[in-house]
């Protein structure tokens, strides 16, 4: 029989993790279980659902809008994630050295990240308005014709990617800055003594040392891109046509405009599935990369 002191010591960790575990269960675990259950039901706006097995998932196969939204989501993610990360890294490297007004510059680049998505969306809609937007007026000064930033199905996704990358760069920059400052300067000094130039030092020391940070940033950015809703909803409403309709928007539409909660839950689980597969693949890749360090 254990003594009271030992029992208390054994219980202490659970007391500490208890509140967090409770919150996680209430706001994450239980909703996930409910969403999984819902995805196997035909549930209208309110009331009891009818059990339909995998019908909701089977319906995805013949849903043209789902396919379009899935492709748009992939294009949007591929367009935003590497660009934001590369630009963030470039800025971090640039601002990781003594510069006049460095603090102000860092803050300026970070501001878009904390601005509300709806506000960003409204302002950017004005800036990129084909008729009276600042962007086209600036181009007109240079003698360049109006660009249909948001009104052409071929341009709208590109414009959204520009806007979202702009909001994301500051975040990537701050995370990379922290990581850059933790790289021991001795490594670079030693490489310099061995004759490595700036590019070689960056490629062979900085980039590999940033691998864990890059890994985390990659996953976070993919999550952000899969969840991007407000800016797209405000700027294009998924249009012109379906050219900027993404999966999360389709989930929202199915749930609250169509009232098809079961189908929306199935769509949501597809998003979760994509994210899970991506995260697992990324973790495997990171482990392999780190094993070479």
């Amino acid at each position: 029989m254990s003594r009271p002191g030992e029992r208390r010591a054994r219980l202490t960790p659970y007391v500490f993790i208890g509140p967090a575990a409770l919150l996680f269960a209430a706001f994450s675990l239980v909703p996930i279980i409910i969403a999984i259950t819902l995805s196997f039901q035909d549930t209208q706006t309110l009331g009891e659902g009818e059990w339909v097995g995998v019908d909701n998932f089977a319906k995805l196969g013949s849903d043209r809008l789902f396919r379009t939204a899935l492709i748009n989501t992939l294009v949007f993610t591929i367009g935003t994630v590497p660009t934001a990360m590369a630009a963030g890294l470039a800025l971090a490297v640039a601002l990781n050295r003594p510069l006049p007004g460095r603090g102000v510059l860092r803050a300026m680049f970070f501001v878009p990240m904390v601005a509300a998505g709806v506000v960003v969306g409204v302002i950017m809609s004005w800036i990129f308005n084909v008729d009276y937007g600042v962007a086209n007026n600036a181009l007109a000064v240079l003698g360049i014709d109006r660009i249909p930033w948001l009104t052409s199905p071929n341009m709208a996704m590109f414009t959204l990617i520009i806007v979202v990358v702009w909001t994301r760069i500051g975040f990537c920059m701050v995370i990379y800055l922290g990581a850059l400052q933790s790289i021991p300067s001795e490594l670079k000094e030693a490489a310099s003594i061995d004759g490595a130039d700036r590019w070689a030092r960056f490629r062979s020391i900085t980039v590999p040392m940033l691998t864990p940070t890059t890994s985390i940033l990659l996953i976070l950015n993919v999550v952000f891109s899969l969840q991007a809703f407000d800016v797209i909803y405000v700027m294009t409403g998924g249009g012109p046509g379906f050219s900027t309709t993404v999966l999360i928007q389709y989930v929202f539409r199915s749930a609250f405009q169509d009232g098809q909660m079961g189908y929306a839950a199935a769509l949501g689980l597809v998003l979760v599935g994509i994210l899970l597969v991506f995260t697992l693949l990324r973790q495997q890749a990171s482990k392999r990369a780190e094993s070479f360090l």
Partner: protein
Amino acid sequence: MRPPDPSRRQILAVAGISMAGALAACSGADTGTTHLRLSSWNIPTDLDSYQAIADRFVEDHPGTSVAVEVTTGSFHQWFITRLAADLAPDIIRITPQQIGRYAANGSLVDLTQAIPADYQEDWSEPFWAIGQRENGIFGVFQHTDNFITFYNRSVMEQIGVHPPTTLEDAWTWDQFLEIAAEVKKVTGNYAFSYGWSGPDTAYRWMPLIYQNGGAFLGEDGLTPSMDTDAAIEALAFGRSWYADGLVSPSNMSKSGGGHVDFDLFTTGQVGMALTNPEAIAAFDEAMSGEWGTAPMIRNVGEGSDLGGNALAVTRSSREPELAAELVAYMTSRDNIQEFCHNGNWIPSRTSLDAGDIGYADHEDVMQQFIDQGTTIPLSMVKAQSGEYFSSLNAVFADYLDLCLIGQLSPQQASAQMMEAMLSVTTR
């Protein structure tokens, strides 16, 4: 003398008693007062008006209180989650396009017992139909708005056109296109703008179908009918706006940036705007005295946008009878008059005209909106306040957009819209 330190058990006991007290206070135990909650869009003048009217109701009903609160974010998301938690307000301000789903699925309460028998006589048939169902009255239409034609006086003078002032003389589609071509020459950009304000407002284009003798849904309010010649011609008419450069491609239901229609008008890029009374304040601010109004365009038939709101009682209400009584009180002639006067709204009651309301400004324009309200077709009202309209409106937004930008021909848009509409109505 220093007071003794409380022991751990004493602290726990005090905490436990406090917690029990707090929980008891939150339990909703009977305090002798009956509370009602009314939720409205976040329009400060309207919130004040609702509270003032509710305060008078409370004076006549001792032991009651009414709190006016704000409907936040996306309406359906907000309302569905609160209904699911049984925490929706007692009374909700709701648009005709939103009411159908909730009236059909039991989320709203039948008001028949509380509504005076003579009320219906003072509403036009279309306006009364917004809340009326076979099994009861699920909302009372409180105020409305619609679309008329705003024009730039200087542009009209330059092209030598005297815009019509009465509904009978409203421009037909052909006349309008002819004038629009001249307006475009004067502005050097586009001819006119249309009053969408986001994908949820795609339905504002629907009156064009009815103006051409078509319909979005059949007489039963359920069967899709976008495959008729009249509907396809209406789509072709809309497509010509963009193909001929009369309307900016940035002015569609899915385009963002707030009121693009107002901005295009006030920046002189268009000479006409088909839009609602919200434009008055914006145009006055930017170009006071430089604009005028004409009726909404027409073709073989008439039609204008169905704007406005109804008041309804939700199933979450613990006091549905009292809440229904408050809805009846809010929609009395005097209270609608007061509400429309304060908020510059158009009354839903037919016995109220602009003179009765006593608008602070532009009484003639407001009367024009009141008159235009009579052209809103009953079949369009039934379609828009039907059970599936929220889903159908999303479908309409998609295929109208594809047609207007030229990705689908009017025939293709019609066929694909029909297919998508049928997948909704046959669920």
